[in-house]
């Protein structure tokens, strides 16, 4: 909870002595096969970093290790100086980590607005039956305002009262983004936010992400297939291939490098 004050107002002239997220020497094996071999990724406050690689490169595993779905076999993941190993997922969320899912995970039966309201409240309190029984569980005006602000920002106002499962895949991804933003994260993990979207929807999503990152001062880690999408958004990019880190650095340079072209297009390229 101590971190929540820092999330709303960006610290003036942040002197980043240490990165926000620091994954060092992460390794993961499945039945003897090294899915990840000694990978190090760092993300600074307010930075947008992409994680790319061909299918089977291990980027989903790395993403899961960083966001807490899996624990690495070796190595460490520290968020704001706190070791995340073995920490329950809902606790990580309260530290300021939020995420979206590649196969969207919406709350069937809840409206879009409820998604945001639930996320907003879950960040601050555990449900208490005493509070429910004494009639103090209705959304407060502050909660409504914050909810409307998030919906406005991502452009979901028109769909606010629709049930989430009736929306298209593209809108569903936006709902996931809104839900994650309602957690007021310092670091946002986006798992293939453009997958399944057509070109127009992907461009729209990229636009929203640019705005969000600028205005909310949130760091974003992007796990992505779509190179154009990455090129537009990410300031730095890590490239994985067969469980190894084959390139890292500013996005433009990385995408142009020979190693990356080989990994993506094969030896003949």
């Amino acid at each position, binding site marked *: 909870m101590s971190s929540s004050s820092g999330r709303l107002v960006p610290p003036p002239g942040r002197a980043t002595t240490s990165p926000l997220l620091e994954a060092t020497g992460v390794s993961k094996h499945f039945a003897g096969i090294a899915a990840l071999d000694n990978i190090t990724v760092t993300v600074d406050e307010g930075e947008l970093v992409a994680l790319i690689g061909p299918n089977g490169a291990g980027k989903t595993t790395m993403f899961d290790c960083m966001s807490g779905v899996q624990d690495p076999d070796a190595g460490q993941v520290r968020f704001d100086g706190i070791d995340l190993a073995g920490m*329950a997922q809902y606790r990580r969320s309260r530290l300021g980590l939020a995420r979206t899912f590649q196969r969207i995970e919406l709350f069937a039966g809840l409206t879009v607005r409820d998604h945001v309201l*639930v996320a907003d409240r879950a960040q601050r309190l555990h449900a208490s039956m005493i509070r429910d029984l004494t009639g103090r569980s209705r959304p407060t005006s502050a909660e409504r305002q914050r909810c409307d602000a998030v919906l406005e920002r991502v452009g979901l106002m028109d769909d606010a009262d629709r*049930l989430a499962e009736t929306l298209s895949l593209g809108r569903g991804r936006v709902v996931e983004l809104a839900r994650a933003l309602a957690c007021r994260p310092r670091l946002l993990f986006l798992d293939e936010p453009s997958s399944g979207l057509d070109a127009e929807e992907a461009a729209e999503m990229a636009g929203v992400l640019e705005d969000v990152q600028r205005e909310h001062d949130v760091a974003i880690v992007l796990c992505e297939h779509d190179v154009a999408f990455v090129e537009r958004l990410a300031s730095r990019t890590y490239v994985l291939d067969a469980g190894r880190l084959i390139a890292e650095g500013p996005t433009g340079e990385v995408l142009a490098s020979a190693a990356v072209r080989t990994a993506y297009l094969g030896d003949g390229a």
Partner: protein
Amino acid sequence: MNSLGDAAQYAVRGLPLGCVFALLAVGLTLNYKTSGVFNLAFAAQAYASAAVFYVLRKENHWNLLPAVFVAVVVLGVGMALVLDRTIYRHQRTAPPLAKLVTSLGLLVAIPQIVLLFIGNKSKVNPPPLWPVKRADDFLWPQSGRFVLDASQIATLVATAVVVVALALLFRRGSTGLRMRAVVESPRLLQLQGVNAEQVSLLSWILSSVLASLAGVLIAPLFAQLNSLDFFTLLVAAIAACVVGNLTSITGALLGGLGLGVLQAELAGFLPTNSVLSTGLRPSLPFVVLFLLLLFRRSLRTGGAPADPMSGVDPPPPPPTADLRPGWMTHGTHVFAGAVIAAGLGLCLWVLDDFWVGLVTAGVCLAVVLLSITLTTGVGGTISLCQASFAAIGAFTTARLVGNGMSVMVAMMLGALVATAVGAVLGLAVIRLPGIYAALATLAFAMMFEGVLVPVDWISGGSTPGRVPRPLIAGVDFTSDRAFLLLACAFLGALALGVIAIRDGTTGRFLDAVRGSVTAARSIGINPTRHQLAVFVAGAGIAGLGGGLLASFFGEANYNQSFTFFLSLVWLVLVITAGSRLVQAAIISGITFFVFPALLDKWFTWPGTYLASHPETSGVARSFLEFFNPGWSLGVAFILFGLGALTYAKHPEGVIEAQGSVVVARIVAFVNRRRRGPNEHDRETPPDVPTPADLVT
């Protein structure tokens, strides 16, 4: 050295029983593997075949082979065909929960249907599957240390045959593979050019015949045929299934044998006449099941396989509350108030004592059922031990009242004790994935019944503890009508509480958890915490309801009011009516007591009519003579059980499903009126109006 020899001897003695467990466990595992259903109705099918075998062999003196053919093959295949056509075929892609509820419904209904056919006369000494009349008519060897009787030999032989046959089926050829694939995704299998319907039917026939065979084989274990004994034995066999993680047939086989041997060892070594041997030994399988469920880590991670084709399902319909415009919500509330007032008025001034008593019992039961609304409807945990919580509340109340405490205070303390037990049990089971949590609570209910209920200090033994009606601040609630008002006050307060929790933050968080556990965690919700909270609160409510029931009946009588089987019936009732609605709990509670009495009245009427009109003859007479007042409870249970079959189609419950149809009609009607007569025939008015339509 001597004790080692004894141990070996006991082990051999335990083998036949082990084979019984193994046969049931293998059948159940096979059923689960090839249909995705954890089919608790397996016990009911086994009972049906055992009953038919009994009637053919013992009452009609058929020869062994034709009797086996009819009872096992014809009936087994027949049941599979009927159930597949009418039920399973339509549920192939239903969620695991729907399938579990269906099997519970069948478990309640099938034995009663069987009883309608074979009559209520007790069936003693079931015959073995061997060409002799009684199991001990054939012994092998004739004398010695290890004598097997006919039924044990038949069990050993049958188990061996079944295991070899299944091994051949699943190791060779593609049938076994297809059967497993049809569970994962029938639609995907269809796309591969395989007839999924046929594969699925085949696997149902296979497991149904196995259930029939098991039923005929295990019947001689009991002195008398009783469907509940079959179910108890099945739950014991589930322990063996869990050894094999519900998927390994070899594991189920070894688990079953091991369980039989372990039980025989305990029988041999435990001192007789101690609590350990009278209470614990028969409950051993449930203890083992409970511990296995808690401590097998692999169960905790293994979720249900997700159908890769589930994305093609249409989204579920919106709940009635979303269709309903504001004015109608108020209208509904006024209507509900009027119905409640009319019902109360009817009870207080119109109905006679008999019916008032039934309604009052129903209202007390409705309090217990509210706990299901909270635990299952809001929390999403299937609990099969709510009757046990009610019993804990009732026993505590009786005990404290016996020590001179006031009834109301004792009831409250009873609720507290139930809450405490619920907290301990909940901590243990709430993390288990759905079906395992259900099984663990069932195992708890059976342990409770086997170990604690027989203890005199707890239940009062053969003379149940007395609980008088309360006296609060000089107001006497002894008369049924006064007690009805008291029970209604409790019910009303608790119902409002459950609604507040359901619609409050707790309910919202749990809605999110039901929508997606992963996503709920990712936004900071701790699912376990909230599920535990409602489970514990549910236990407390059930405990209070138990105290009320005991006070109404005047005693805390376990066998009459709280057996584990009632937990299943109540759950089926509430889920059928609508697990999230408090009105469903209330209606279910009253229905449980009033409906059988109504049926009784209807079934008795033809008899009384014939007695007073002896001149009736011909077709009319034989038609009226057909009705038998002895059926009423059985028919009620059949209808309760079959009602659960609607769950797969309407998981929101019958009330909600009917409600949304009615609401849609009313709204459409009002809209037509508002548009005016000229537009009356405008083509295709939207059949389900959206809220936006109603704003204008």
